[in-house]
């Protein structure tokens, strides 16, 4: 499956990755090669196979409804790029 430069741009947008224009052909080539590798999966008929989502075939373990966390805002925000009045700041969100 060959990916075109325009496919790469679309995926990069979906994944929120800025990719320089001059790098796009290389990404297109590499991603096409990877998808070529992936296409080998088609050699096997899997109609009757149950998908395996996880190596552990166990059910979820639940936790009791207890409060175990304390306020650590100061610590957490000491590593934040931009905060004010306890809020994380981002460029204006337009709805």
């Amino acid at each position, binding site marked *: 499956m060959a990916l075109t430069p325009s496919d790469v741009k679309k995926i*990069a947008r979906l*994944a*929120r*990755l800025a990719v320089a224009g001059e790098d796009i052909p290389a990404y297109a080539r*590499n*991603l096409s090669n990877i998808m070529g590798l992936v296409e080998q999966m088609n050699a096997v008929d899997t109609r009757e*196979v149950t998908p395996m989502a996880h190596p*552990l075939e166990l059910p979820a373990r639940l936790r009791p409804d207890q409060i175990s966390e304390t306020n650590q805002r100061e610590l957490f925000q000491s590593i934040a790029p931009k905060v004010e009045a306890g809020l994380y700041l981002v460029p204006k969100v337009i709805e």
Partner: protein
Amino acid sequence: MHTKTIAELSRALKQREFSSEELTRACLRRIEKHNPALNCYISVTGERALAQARAADASLAKNEGGALTGVPIAQKDIFCTKGVKTSCGSRMLDNFIAPYDATTVERFDAAGAVMLGKTNMDEFAMGSSNETSFYGAVKNPWDTAAVPGGSSGGSAAAVAARLAPAATGTDTGGSIRQPAALCNLTGLKPTYGRVSRYGMIAFASSLDQGGPMARTAEDCALLMQVMAGFDVRDSTSVDKPVPDYTATLNDSIKGLKIGLPREYFGAGLDGKVAQAIDAAVKEYEKLGAVVKEISLPNTSLAVPVYYVIAPAECSSNLSRFDGVRYGYRCKDPQDLLDLYERSRGEGFGAEVKRRIMVGAYVLSAGYYDAYYLKAQKLRRLISDDFKRALEQVDVIMGPTAPTVAFNLGEKTDDPVTMYLSDIYTIAVNLAGLPAISLPAGFVGQRPLGLQIIGNYFDEPRLLNVAHQYQKVTDWHTRTPKGFE
């Protein structure tokens, strides 16, 4: 001091042949001397280490503490360490001082071990050569023109060069076993769910597993004793008693049934590596093991399946790195989209971006069934191959990697060639099985590894089988030139 294994250091510390502080200072001096050439540490935490060493000495003076009290180790820089930079090999987290400890870090601290520093790694554990690190490539101490393997390449190089007696690694597709093989170490990838993933920065959640990297199987057993165990903070951690991993090391392996998958010895395997593996298997026969040829028919699908599942999970796991709450943020974002795209575009390296894009692509509308669902079905077939094989044999043996270490820069242009170097390790992660790699010879001056795959939670047997080999061979005792 630096030539000793953990088991030896533990005995020496208990007998006060030297103090933990002396030992730690010696390790730090070696790091200072050799790290610039090898680049195996991202952070060296000297002060923290010495404080831990002094605390350990205080315990030892009171005849307290366990096997690892006062023993220095290195942590892969994927494990969050409170108050210490935890970069995951990425520019994205170059400024990230972790606000909490990973369970693995907590457990080693509680066991009295001394953390020397955080080791270099492929960015977000994505790579097989340690060349994708933001902090530059790591060099293989056995041959500095060669890669140390990846993604736990810093841990492997550090232990091989005796810059740490042991280290932690993580293994998503071979990231403990392959660098262990390429650096002449013993590395154990535990059963999925045996070691907590809490605080271990996720690459592919259904595949990631932390484990020990050391010189001997005995050392791996001592480290596993600390790392293994149930953790309420990890929903995928299995609540199952932890066996005494050292108790069974010396059990006889007479009658052990070894399966050799014919698919692991076909085209693509370097002839000299094949010879060395054959020789190792012969050694096992001498020890009374019985060898049987088996088949894992879906082996060739493991790499394609892995390159759907791992990127899919990684694309989602790495979405949290958005420049909002921590980590890299681009300069002067114009708007929200710009903040996201440039923070992530500039913060991640090329291989990480490739995998995120592959993952976003295979999960995107219209492709899910053809790629992700298909891969999940094949994952079942691959897993079933192992189930059938392990009904006939006790362990499966083969090479860890198809070749010895390749040269730095040799495979960086073509990701697919790089991916294929993990052909023998990847299937084990898809199935969630435990596997160990141990030193089994050299091609020229570059080491190679024997991989032993066991049944779920059968780590004691893997360690026992590896230890028995190490009692009759000396590959694991060899030291790279210049680091004796």
